[in-house]
């Protein structure tokens, strides 16, 4: 992931004549209209009847905000029951379109589960995401089950844009994909700033290494503690590690970056802090049961 991020950052820096490549995945529960939405964006027509030759991946070149983009859209139709196969999709992509059906309550409730799964696999606090409520043309027919305010509240909770689309009437289809591109660009810029902050911290740590007094060590520990407390309020929390020596801390951070499994579990810990106590506990029990269920199957 970091290598992809570096490539994207380099591409972001050289925006004059190059085409920026972005991978995105359209996710959601079954029969919410993922394929219809993707085909509408890619080929500008609605799948009224059954249409042959539905591809798995779609590539579209488009111009957004004076930049050239090559969008690679992956349609995850048909694999809602296979979570391990779905994880392969999640690892490979930069941004996500989370789709639910406004006439299906269950698809809306599964959205939370899906977002938690993405956080676990990507091992990040937040990621570029757009929440989409599809089939809003059925609202005029009186089949709406999920209100607009519920979608808005959920999107605010996750900190992502929200659109109500209709692949049939082409409402908000293009703008939702374009907004995801903007989210990905903003996320990459944020990651860039994050790296700069890390470099600054390294410089500070090097300065602190020169002082080897016990009082200075205690002060350093306290300062590290206060730094970690200061970082709690931010959206992406810096992982703190309290060691006797600062050199050990650097090594520990490197080890953390290399280990995917450790980061997964820590992301769970960090997720629990961001969420409220009720939801976190219930979700945790649910995820634990699902893990146990997976374990028993194996």
């Amino acid at each position, binding site marked *: 992931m970091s*290598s992809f991020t*570096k*490539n994207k950052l380099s591409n972001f820096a050289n925006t004059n004549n190059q085409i920026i*490549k972005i*991978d995105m995945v359209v996710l959601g529960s079954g029969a919410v209209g993922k394929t219809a939405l993707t085909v509408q964006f890619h080929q500008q027509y609605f799948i009224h009847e*059954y249409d*042959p*030759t*539905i*591809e*798995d*991946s779609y*590539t579209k*070149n488009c111009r957004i905000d004076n930049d050239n983009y090559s969008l*690679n859209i*992956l349609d*995850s*139709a*048909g*694999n809602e*029951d*296979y*979570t*391990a*196969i779905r*994880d*392969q*999709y999640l*690892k*490979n992509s930069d941004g996500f379109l989370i789709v639910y059906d406004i006439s299906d309550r269950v698809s809306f409730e599964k959205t939370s589960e899906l977002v938690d799964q993405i956080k676990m696999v990507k091992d990040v606090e937040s990621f570029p995401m757009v929440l989409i409520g599809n089939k809003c043309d059925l609202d005029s027919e009186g089949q709406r089950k999920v209100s607009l305010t519920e979608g808005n509240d959920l999107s605010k909770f996750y900190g992502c844009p929200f659109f109500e689309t209709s692949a049939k009437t082409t409402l908000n289809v293009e703008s939702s994909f374009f907004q995801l591109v903007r989210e990905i660009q903003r996320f990459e810029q944020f990651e860039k700033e994050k790296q700069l902050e890390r470099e600054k911290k390294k410089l500070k740590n090097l300065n602190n290494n020169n002082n080897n007094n016990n009082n200075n060590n205690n002060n350093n520990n306290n300062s590290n503690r206060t730094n970690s407390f200061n970082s709690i309020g931010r959206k992406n929390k810096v992982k703190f*590690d*309290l*060691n*006797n*020596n600062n050199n*050990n801390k650097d*090594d*520990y951070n490197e080890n953390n970056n290399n*280990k*995917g*499994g*450790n980061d997964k*579990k*820590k992301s*769970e*810990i960090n997720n*629990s*802090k961001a969420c409220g*106590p009720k939801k*976190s*506990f*219930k979700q*945790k*029990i649910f995820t*634990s049961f699902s*893990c*146990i269920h997976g*374990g028993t*199957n*194996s």
Partner: protein
Amino acid sequence: MIFLFKTSNKYFYLLGVGGSCFLGFVFLYFLKKSYNNKNNKFIESDNNNKNNFEKEEKEMSQQLIEIRKKINDYSKLKYPTKQGILFKKSRYLKEWRNRFFVIEEDILYYFDIEKGNNSNKPIGTPLGIFNLLNCSFTLITNEKRSPLVFKIQEENGTNKDYKNCLISCESAEEFNQWFQLLPQIKQTMDRKKDLVIKLQALSRKKLQQKKYQQLKESALTIQRFYHLYEGERKLARFIFNVIKVQSYARCFIDRMRYKKIKEEIMVIQSHFQVIKAKNRLEKEFMRRRIAQELLSTEKSYVYNLKLIIDIFIRPLINFNSIEQRVLSVSEISGVFGNWERLYKINSDLLVLIQCKLDNWSIDQTIGDLFIENTDSLFEYTPYVTNYDHSRKLLAKLTSGNTNFRNFLDAAQRDKRSKYLDISSFLIQPIQRLPRYELLLRDLLKSTSTLHKDHKYLSKGIVKIKEITMYVNDQQKERENLSQVIQIQKELIMDNIKLSFSSATRLIREGEIKVSKKKTWNYMYLFNSQLVIIQKKDDKKLVKEVIQLEQLGIRDDNSSSSNTITNDSGTDLLNNSSNNLLLLSSTISSPDLSSSGTNAINTSSQALPIGTIGNKFKLIISSKTEISLYFDTPEEKNNWFADIAITLNRLETQKKNFEKSINLQTIN
């Protein structure tokens, strides 16, 4: 004779004194009359009318007797028309005597007169009665007192004296009055009869007229009623006719409407049949389209598989010299896995699908193909399990190897690749297996239940689902195993033994404190044990390993000094949860799973009450306990829940194992 002397007047007294000859003359006279009457009787009896005569006589006599009985006195005659004293000649003595004569209506009465002074009063019952209607009046010229003498004689005369008498008057005027009056009375009576008859006739006429009028009125009423009835009858007839016509019209209209409805029903039925046939045709059309989509997607998939072989794999393998080689053989197999094998599997499948669709008909089946020929799809498992490694290796190679990156850019510019990069191609086998299920499910939806292929497709879907689920499970197991192996490599064990089996799974990891004053440590929660490590320099030292089979957990808020003071209710909740979890730690206690879930529920109920604390205890044995401190209460609760769930699951597994052992011993 003596009687006559006593009753006679002066006049008769003078005559009587004269001589007895007069008396003898009278006697003879009476004898002649009686003899004449007798002779008349005999003559009539000779004519054979004796019986009739007697009857009439009896009747007349009876009538007169009755009249006499009724009239006892002159006072009863109330309305006389004429009355006065007249001379009447006696029958036997032939003397003229004074008698009082009274006429009332049509009957003549005569009475005796009192002796005395000039009194003219009648006395006693009438001496004689004449019915004037049956009498005749004649003048007599032979008598002394003539011409003032007339004779009254009834038409049905008899021998009796009172039926025939001579009457005389003193003066001519009086005589004229009486003589003229008597016939007049008869005439008047006759007129009266006529009047009566006329009156009767008139009354009869009147009655007739009344009847006629009544009849007329009744006729008028009847006529009027008849007219009314006629009007009503006409109206009724009219209404009846109208109703009749209406009924006819209604029948006609109903028939026409029925015809229309029948025609509409026929049209609807025919339309329905058309719709039915159309639906059948549409279903068949849709079925064919989905089958064609299956073919076309399989074609494009196999094309892409071959494209990767032609563009990427063979050029990488077939470099002439070692120096120009971009990747090693192990790297190529690391990135692409068993790609060539997948190509062969799917090209064979494509040939079979192509044969099915070349010989397409309504009765063609596809599900049997997927039942019999999809066992080779299990070989997708190594590719899917290798995908994560492949992705990481590809990232590493593109960042590190300049020649490979240039090679990829050149390959991507090829027109055949549709400007998709290699990662898009590598993801396609992973997407293909779920897509089979999607296509077959759509095909099953378009196939009727009576079709032969419906059963085959159902079984085919089950088969594909099994294969995909197997691949999914293998991927999960692979991920867990790689995770555990990675942790195992990092750990250093000096004094304590730590063994991992193939079934070991990582559940949770995080930073903890064993006491308040000490530094932070790290803890791993696996499915069978709990590992606490300490970090020194660059290494991770395993400090303690706790087996979960003998572990208990307890949450004591009152003993912790950092906890906020709570109500007694929360203490009760926590105490109950503590007791339940203590029970769950022992092996032989019953109903562990239910008590464990109750513990979890009670602890979850305790959450919204308030902050509980950031600490709980691990009970390793009856003597030793370890207190674990966490950064936040939420983190503590999450660890508590995970450990409780893991303990609960171990107990259920142990129960099942014991049950299976018991079953084996019984068998």
